[in-house]
């Protein structure tokens, strides 16, 4: 477990900023308890400082996880957000997409969101923008990237893809072995 290097921080923050935008400031300078980012075995954890200090006493081979896991660095040094980051993203997301009840299951099985399943979408969402996907009763289900801007989606036919799937909560079941 160690703090992130300059390069790593840049990779993590740029990924996060894609979803939360300027709200990233709230993540780093929290008003309640100070939080920090820590790297442990390729994975980045977002954790309160008091928790981190206590977790220091756990030896490296025996520490499995602490706080919230945001994602992992691939071997080539790219950062990939995991579904476990949904908690953080959902709280601060700038652009949101709500899907209809009949679209929930297809999305939770790892499919892209099609126009027919789109319930609501934040106004003026640009193209290729990171969005958090919610169900109609505001439960975060996952996140993805918009295929079109809000304006363009209006003209699409019902089977066209609106949001590219990146992660969904179904991964807790599907990828339990590889996720951690």
């Amino acid at each position: 477990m160690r703090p992130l290097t300059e390069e790593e921080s840049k990779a993590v923050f740029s990924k996060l900023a894609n979803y939360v935008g300027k709200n990233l400031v709230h993540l780093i300078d929290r008003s309640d308890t100070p939080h920090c980012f820590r790297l442990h075995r390729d994975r980045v954890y977002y954790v309160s400082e008091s928790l981190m200090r206590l977790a220091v006493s756990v030896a490296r081979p025996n520490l499995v996880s602490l706080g919230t896991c945001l994602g992992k660095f691939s071997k080539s040094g790219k950062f990939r957000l995991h579904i476990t980051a949904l908690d953080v993203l959902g709280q601060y997301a700038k652009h949101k997409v709500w899907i209809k009840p009949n679209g929930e299951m297809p999305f939770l099985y790892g499919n892209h969101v099609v126009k027919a399943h789109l319930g609501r979408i934040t106004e003026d969402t640009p193209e290729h923008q990171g969005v958090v996907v919610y169900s109609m009763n505001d439960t975060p289900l996952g996140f993805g990237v918009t295929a079109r801007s809000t304006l363009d989606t209006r003209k699409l036919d019902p089977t066209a893809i609106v949001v590219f799937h990146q992660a969904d909560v179904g991964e807790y079941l599907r990828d339990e072995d590889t996720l951690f």
Partner: protein
Amino acid sequence: MHKKSLFDDSEEEGQGEYDEGGEADEFDIDGDDNFERPEAQDMDFLSSDEEADSLPTKPTKPTKKPRFAASSSDDDDDDEEAEEEPTTARNIEARSRALEAKAIAERAADMAEAAAAGAGEETMFALPSAEQQEAEASGSAPVDVNELQLRMRECVKVLGDFKKFAAPNRSRSEYVQQLLADIASYYGYNAFLAEKLFDLFPVAEAIEFFESNELPRPVTIRTNTLRTRRRELAQALINRGVNLEPIGKWSKVGLQVFESSVPIGATPEYLAGHYMLQAASSFLPVIALDPQPGERVLDMASAPGGKTTYISALMQNTGVVFANDANKERTKGLTANVHRLGCRNVVVCNYDGREFPKVMGGFDRVLLDAPCSGTGVISKDASVKQNKSARDFTLLSHLQKQLILCAIDSVTPSSSATVVYSTCSVTVDENESVIAYALRKRPHVRLVDTGLEFGREGFKAFRGKTFGEEMGKTRRFYPHVNNMDGFFVAKLRVGKPGKRAEQAREESEDEQGGDVGLPLEKMAFDDEADAELIRESKRKYLLKHKGIKLRPKAKVDAALCKTNGKDAESDEE
């Protein structure tokens, strides 16, 4: 004929036709009845439906009819009508209540009948001969299941009132042995485990216990209060076609699932972490632990995380929860659950629990849900019936004793320092014995009330071992009593070690022995007098060991005498 009529639910005995008179009702079973209920093998002693249906005096059943020739079949028709009506969300509650009321009525009726029938009946039951038993044991003459069932019932009856029913030249232990052998073969236990579990209960209750191990326990879920509220969750699940109800008055977060049209472990709500699939019994240790926000809590054996996440939820994501598990593979599922339920205050680590005070101490509360034999969850994992031997129990209780000491040592003594010990086992050597051991080894620890309103008190004494009145503060849960897994919960309060604890202990001991009335003198060992006594007894012991007959004043060699002196000191400690 009378004998058969008492327990009349096997097919062969269903031949009896309707009787005109009221006094012989016990054996008027009709064929339909048996067809309707394919589980004729049901060994439930207290609630067999057929008997209650055919009974003239039903104490509480509302549809009480005058007895006439076809009344029995009428009853059945009623039942059929009721069953044909489809079960819907609207009427399920009323129906289940009606069923419960019926079951209670039948149980009462059954008891009354059993008492009445038992009174006016002579025994016709004889134990099988020794040759027969041997043949059965070797497998050369397998017994019919129905016969086995019948024999078990008779044994239970005889053991229930031994003076009255027993054959004159048979001893109680013979009946017990026969019953044990039958239980082992009927339910598929190995002989050792059958006896171990049988010893925990009175005879009739033991059968109930074994019987309930064959039935599945209800599916229960726990609301994740970090994400949602129980009312909202229940509404969301009902909309998905799940039939559920609050688990009981004792829990504000539990829901019991009756039936579901969707897989309950894969709904969007489940994946979003609104609830956890969790047995009702595993709520209990956390309720007993009673973690408060801001504390430092350790869960020593935490996978798959049901209790850990409950602790975290009760602490409202503040403080720290250390979730430890010795099995690396199982920590993956644990981590997944911790993240799914949104617990941010959890550190997952992978140690052997016995390393714990070394890794980290200073906890406010420790939950030790110890690895155990699983005799409480046989309905979930039936392999326990065969694969547990005496050695397993010795090893497990040894491990548990090590773990509980580690758990106690990991806590900072204070007024709220708590250790909760729980197992999903019902045997005494994994539960009360372990607690008694911990209390003996750590005098500053005492048992406190678990804060659970139900469940039975732990054994204060068991088969010659006395655990003391204190052990009544522990709680036991049984599948046949509480309809949850067999479980044991003990709550320990850790005080400051040292003088004060010692003093308190001495005081309490004085109170116990207070009736002597002597002023407290300074107690000391009279070494000289002791040495003499010890030498003498050591000599006797040695000689006896070698098989030499004792002579009154034999010479003791000096060397022996010296070693005795040393041993004497350590013995006295």
